[in-house]
């Protein structure tokens, strides 16, 4: 099976680091990270990852806005995006799911099972 390449976009250093550690050490995936939506879009265009794991609440350009901007670009529109959120209320979950992302996962995630959750959501299992 080819190594998966994942782009993590999150403004929180500790979330980025733990998610990257989790996906690299548990699943053996290659991980790139970006700390903002704008940086994430640049990296996504340069690397064309197999999937993007992106935070919802970020300053300047939040996850949903970044996702919508990606959908406007043909080279990025087909990359599956998983949103990561600490919002647990049903209304927020429905709003995020309605954006057309591949999945919505919730913080705090379990670092030992994050890759498994992503694999299931992406149909990679």
């Amino acid at each position, binding site marked *: 099976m080819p190594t998966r390449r994942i782009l993590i976009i999150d403004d929180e250093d500790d979330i980025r680091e733990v998610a990257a550690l989790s996906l690299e050490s548990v699943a053996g995936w290659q991980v790139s990270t970006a700390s903002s939506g704008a940086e994430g879009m640049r990296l996504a265009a340069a690397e064309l990852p197999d999937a993007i794991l992106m935070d919802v609440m970020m300053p300047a350009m939040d996850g949903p806005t970044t996702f919508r901007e990606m959908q406007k670009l043909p080279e990025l529109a087909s990359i599956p995006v998983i949103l990561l959120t600490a919002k647990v209320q049903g209304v927020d979950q429905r709003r995020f799911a309605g954006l057309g992302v591949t999945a919505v996962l919730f913080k705090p995630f379990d*670092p030992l099972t994050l890759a498994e959750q992503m694999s299931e959501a992406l149909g990679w299992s």
Partner: protein
Amino acid sequence: MPPAKDPEATRKLLASLWERSLPVLRERCALLERAATAAQAGTLTPELRAEATAIAHKLSGSLGMFGYPEGTDLARRIEEHLEAPTPTDAPRLTHDVTALLATLPL
């Protein structure tokens, strides 16, 4: 997905990341304490409330992944107290911030 590598090695790496995040975590908890004290005194400004709400939200998303699910629950409640304050929220805020600090090995 390739087979999972040694979970114990991953846990050790997580523990080192936790150690590295402690200075920022201490600053964030201190800010929550300031917000709770100000709320009790009736002097919580909108700016401090907004900052503390954002901090509580961040903590609710991160503490559980380091193995502190109770910290996540408390941070979530603190965020709720700050987002939609009622007259009874100031003492609850103080109570939950105190409980959060007691939960974490800072």
